[in-house]
């Protein structure tokens, strides 16, 4: 029996602390929370919004059983801010929201990048602008990268299945601790509300990255610098006697902001940039199929990978089109090197997205000399059907 069905069986009855290994049949939202708990989630601060509320409701149900705490805050701004405080006090923290709420969290994201605060934010994207619509979307992928003020780098993942909602949530926590930075999970209504099989491995087989602590590196409190020591500085928690000063104004490695100094700001911002953009190959992942013989390629991410791979297989099997498939598991930092390594020379690159064409831009920029043309396949508010994609492929390659 799945954890979710246990949880909902009887009001007030608490399910087992962590999900049991084996097969489950879960909703994406539930899998996300179960993954987070396995990764060590201790604090969830949320605010309701369709279509992300199920994640919050499941967290409210599940957290006390692991000794964690859930709070429903007064808005998305404060929800994001609870994660910051929780992380500093040593608790792994997450929230989930949908696009309008994601807009409200941007200042907290920028602040977390600058203060190098590990936390995880899930955006279950819905179409905009404004209140827009309440179906599915991939319209916030550029906001994920550029929505927060300043030029802080970001890590953003794009799950395409219930399994991914579990696995990538764990990966998001691991990346946030490993690189001491906020990590975004750019989900869509499609994957959050999808219900399908989840396979949970033995829990001791799941890698959980611990926080890099000054104590473990033999750094004494009097020598500790909250933004120093290394490219990824070690992080002391509140209450450990390290007298940490968290600051987001331009600061020296020791947190001292006393003398405004553009050089120290430049140095810090370059380090923050290098920390992520200089380690793209260690951070970013792509998945690919049929690239060996491909004359064309379809590049997509998130739920579009599901209909995308189906269209590619049908184009190959039924129409004999030599087309490859590539999925961006990580949207940001952008896997430029990996794309250039995998794709040498193709005719057409198809980029279906549930927006009017966003990731098509970095893809084009990366591969413009490796293809004849790039075809954007937009969709607003709904997943492309495999037939639609196949039609576009056949139209372009005249099959």
């Amino acid at each position, binding site marked *: 029996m799945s954890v979710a069905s246990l949880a909902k069986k009887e009001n007030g*009855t*608490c399910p*087992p*602390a962590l999900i049991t290994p084996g097969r489950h049949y879960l909703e994406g939202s539930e899998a996300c929370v179960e993954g987070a708990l396995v990764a060590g989630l*201790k*604090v969830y*601060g949320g605010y309701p919004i369709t279509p992300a509320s199920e994640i919050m409701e499941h967290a409210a149900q599940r957290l*006390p*059983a692991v*000794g964690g*705490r859930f*709070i429903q*805050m*007064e*808005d998305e*701004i*404060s*929800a994001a*801010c*609870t*994660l*910051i*405080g*929780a*992380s*500093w*006090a*040593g*608790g792994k*923290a997450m929230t989930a929201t949908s696009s309008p709420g994601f807009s409200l969290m941007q*200042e*907290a994201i920028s*602040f977390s990048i600058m203060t190098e605060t590990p936390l995880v934010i899930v955006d279950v994207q819905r179409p905009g602008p404004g209140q827009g619509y309440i179906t599915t979307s991939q319209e916030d992928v550029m906001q994920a990268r550029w929505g927060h003020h300043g030029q802080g780098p970001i890590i953003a993942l794009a799950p395409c299945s219930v399994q991914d909602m579990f696995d990538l949530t764990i990966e998001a926590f691991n990346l946030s601790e490993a690189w001491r930075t906020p990590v975004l999970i750019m989900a869509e209504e499609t994957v959050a509300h999808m219900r399908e099989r989840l396979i949970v491995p033995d829990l001791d087989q799941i890698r959980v990255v611990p926080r890099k602590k000054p104590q473990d590196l033999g750094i004494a409190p009097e020598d500790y*610098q909250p933004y120093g020591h290394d490219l990824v500085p070690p992080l002391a*928690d*509140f*209450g*450990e*006697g*390290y*007298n*940490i*000063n*968290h*600051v*987001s*104004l331009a*600061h*020296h*490695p*020791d*947190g*001292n*902001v*006393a*003398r405004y100094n553009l050089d*120290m700001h430049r140095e810090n911002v370059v380090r923050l940039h290098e920390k992520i953009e200089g380690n793209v190959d260690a951070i970013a992942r792509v998945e690919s199929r049929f690239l060996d013989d491909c004359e064309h390629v379809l590049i997509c991410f998130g739920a579009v990978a599901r209909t995308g791979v189906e269209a590619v297989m049908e184009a190959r099997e039924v129409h004999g089109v030599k087309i490859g498939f590539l999925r961006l598991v990580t949207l940001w930092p952008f896997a430029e090197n990996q794309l250039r390594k995998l794709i040498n020379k193709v005719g057409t690159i198809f980029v279906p997205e549930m927006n009017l064409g966003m990731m098509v831009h970095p893809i084009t920029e990366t591969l413009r000399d490796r293809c004849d043309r790039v075809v954007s396949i937009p969709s607003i508010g709904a997943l492309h059907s495999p037939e639609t994609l196949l039609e576009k492929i056949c139209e372009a390659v005249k099959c």
Partner: protein
Amino acid sequence: MLKHPMLKYLKEEGPYGPRLPLILCPGCGAGQVLNFTLHAVDSIIEEGGAKKEDFVFISGVGCSSRLTSHYLNFDSAWTIHGRSLAIATGALLANPGLNIVVFTGDGDAAAIGGNHFIHAFRRNINVTVICMNNGLYGMTGGQVAPTTLSQAITSTTPYGNIEDAFDLCRLAQTSGASYVARWTTAHPLKATKAIKKAIGKKGASFIEILSQCPVHKKETPVDMIRALKAMTVPIKKAEGSDKIPVGEFCDTPRPEWTEKYETIIEKCTARRS
């Protein structure tokens, strides 16, 4: 050389140069409030009421929030404008054993942070909020605040303030605070005592310290401190007076948020085992 006794709680030097003096203008009240607070904290630590490492100081943005920017030799955080209480809430959820003091200003607490202000007191999270109310936005050049008195001239009310001021103590009290007191920078001993009492309370406490901004008010600090004394009246004698009441507004403990949540955790973990 004789040193100020509270310097032991400040970081004077660092590997990247001196951290003092404070950024605050001469005559500013925020330094006095820091002094009151450190005296209160010192006496709690000395009496064994709490350990130094359990204290965390959190602030938002504004002059008073600069107190946590990098001077304190405690765990501290200088955070987002208006959001210090939301960040403090998160920290308490991860570690309810922390002793959190929030430094805030009237703009930070009552304007941009107004929503978090009322909800923190409604939830009764274990935090001591110390608000330095100088009746204007000092850091940005003396603009009108929600606490600016009616008719006052500021840089954005050049023809006089047509709005009425918030009474932050009554707002905190009505929202559900466990302990509320107001003093001024002209009442150092009473303010220090109130801060100590507030920190000792389990639940959300609010201390408002009416404070002077000599720079934007273009008056001398001494005149302003005298005026603060003259414009206030003890709360017991406040009825019928048009002066601002100072003293304890309420001392009504009620169960704190994490204490209540603990019963849920216990229920959930007990049923499982």
